[in-house]
């Protein structure tokens, strides 16, 4: 990292001046509280006593045997309360908000995963919460909208732009700009202006730290490869971070290639994107000829984002991590594979990581260890996979 908030050339704080004070205040508060033993103890209590951490590191013996290469472990974030790694981040941010004396939480959401997590944290900590969600996404994800309402959160539709995640992010920033004194913006991934990418990464790095500790006990050594899917990049950064300075650990991110990187229907930011500035950060983005942000596509709603967190862009630029595209077809195939082989239905996001593992593991030796970050569970995706397979399912 070059200067605070920068990862090489990436990162920064590209936001309207109206928001700068809020970012400065946030950074100061985070710096203060994240070093206080009390804050750390409270967060630990929430993670262990509510989210269910540490999450299991599961030796996938049948998969290992089937692929005939590296020993495969699954980091079971799917077993967390609310079903994904998103809870790690929202508990951290909500607690921080509470310490900062904020009364109100806001968040953006795409398919609703981060929104549901945010609403959960808000309910638990007794705070008001409003989630911005594209109207297209609301229509597609009515169940998650209802879930957020059940948790006591107000869901506000965003009809500007494509009516999807990126527009919801825009709207959350706009809202925050108007009321940052009372309101805390809980961003959903390692994205946005500094200090968000740092804060979210810090709240997610528990994933990799646990992997290190668990493997030390299980195998007495480091993993040889860690694979995670990358939307904004929070579960991947969480899984990678503790290993960045261990050069023997290969870090691989799975990007959503949708219908293929040779089509316009993908969300493979590192593979296909260009450096740009968007959502407050300098990073890699899928853009058209005029520098307009492109509509993106993936079967996986959680990977359907035209950018990537700046720290990932940096790791890609220096070659410390690789980011490889995985198509819808490969992801669905691996979704089905893990269900059949291990009795675990992964989130379709996580299935992208599984797909890469199925390519990489057989090329590794049987003494080597490959860890897949299983970022979430797939209950939410069964319907769309069925639809993908041409089965007409209603509930």
């Amino acid at each position, binding site marked *: 990292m070059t200067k605070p908030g920068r990862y090489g050339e990436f990162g920064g704080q590209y936001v309207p001046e109206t928001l700068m004070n809020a970012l400065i205040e946030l950074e100061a508060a985070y710096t203060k509280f994240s070093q206080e033993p009390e804050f750390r103890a409270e967060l630990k209590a929430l993670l262990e006593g509510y989210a269910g951490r540490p999450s299991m590191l599961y030796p996938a013996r049948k998969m290992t045997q089937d692929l005939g290469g590296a020993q495969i472990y699954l980091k079971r974030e799917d077993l967390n309360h609310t079903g994904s790694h998103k809870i790690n981040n929202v508990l951290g941010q909500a607690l921080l908000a509470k310490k900062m004396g904020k009364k109100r939480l806001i968040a953006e959401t795409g398919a609703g995963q981060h929104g549901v997590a945010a609403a959960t944290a808000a309910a638990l900590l007794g705070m008001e919460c409003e989630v911005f969600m594209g109207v297209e996404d609301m229509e597609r994800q009515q169940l998650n909208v209802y879930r957020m309402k059940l948790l006591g959160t107000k869901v506000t539709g965003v009809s500007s732009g494509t009516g999807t995640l990126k527009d919801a992010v825009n709207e959350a920033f706009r809202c925050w700009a108007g009321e940052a004194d009372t309101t805390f913006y809980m961003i959903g991934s390692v994205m946005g202006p500094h200090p968000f990418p740092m804060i979210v990464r810090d709240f997610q790095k528990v994933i990799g730290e646990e992997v290190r500790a668990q493997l030390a006990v299980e195998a007495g050594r480091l993993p040889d490869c860690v694979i995670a899917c990358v939307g904004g990049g929070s579960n991947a950064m969480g899984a990678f971070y503790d290993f960045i300075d261990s050069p023997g650990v290969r870090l691989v991110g799975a990007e959503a290639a949708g219908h293929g990187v040779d089509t316009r229907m993908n969300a493979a930011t590192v593979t296909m994107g260009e450096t740009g500035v968007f959502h407050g950060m300098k990073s890699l983005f899928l*853009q058209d000829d005029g520098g307009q942000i492109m509509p993106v596509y993936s079967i996986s709603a959680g990977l359907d984002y035209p950018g990537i967190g700046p720290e990932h862009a940096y790791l890609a630029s220096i070659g410390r991590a690789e980011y490889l595209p995985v198509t819808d077809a490969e992801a669905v195939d691996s979704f089905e594979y893990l269900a059949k082989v291990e009795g675990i239905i992964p989130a379709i996001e996580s299935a992208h990581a599984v797909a890469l593992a199925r390519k990489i593991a057989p090329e590794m030796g049987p003494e080597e260890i490959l860890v897949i970050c299983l970022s979430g569970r797939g209950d939410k995706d069964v319907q769309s996979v069925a639809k993908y397979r041409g089965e007409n399912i209603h509930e």
Partner: protein
Amino acid sequence: MNRIDATFEGLRHRREKALITFVTAGDPDMATTEALVLEMIAQGADLVELGVPFSDPMAEGPIIQAASARALEAGATLPGIFDLVTRLRSGGVTETPLLLMMYLNCILHYGKDRFFEACARAGIDGVIVPDLPYGEQVEISGEARAHRVHLISLVAPTSRDRIHAIAQNSEGFLYCVSSLGVTGTRAGFATDFDAFFGEIQRHATVPTAVGFGISTPEQAKALAKYAEGVIVGSAVVDLVAKHGTGAAAPVGAFVKALKNAIRE
């Protein structure tokens, strides 16, 4: 001398406040924008901002968001906007400063140096980049300066400790954001203007202009007393939304009313 500096100097001599108006370029089409710029200048606009449409205008409220979307839908591009500016400059708009208001990504994507060179060639005097706060301006300030295009700084009521530095390091004019949140029309302002402008004026080295949410001649008049200029955007764009290709007349009348209000 940059037209912005010259214009503010002239206004100061005449003891007049600057009226700065905004339209989104290419909404609903370039010909209308051209007509609007000419009419606004004819009716008293001292500086004109052209909004470069962006897919994701994070600092904008619904009115300008919608205009941006309409312009993109109608095929507006940065090269097209430079063409428009070139036409305006060769069509008689020789003195009035023209500024681009746009998001950083479009500049980076076009190429920083190439962009400012194009600005200079077409006759753009300043650039307002809402997602480039003081502190990140080095991103493009060198290129801007090389081509003598002013990079306009914004300062907000929440800028606090930053006001000093922003004010001291600004060029052209200092864009003072009159309300929090995004652009748009507002019924009232919660800002303590005396304190805010007191702090600004203590440090400002260039003229100040106040904007964000000003939508009536009365508001313009009330705020004009704090600064050397008043910026009106969404209210103009709203008229364009309503009147489309026939917006020149109502926009002209509105601009005239604004100018009268701040002239008294």
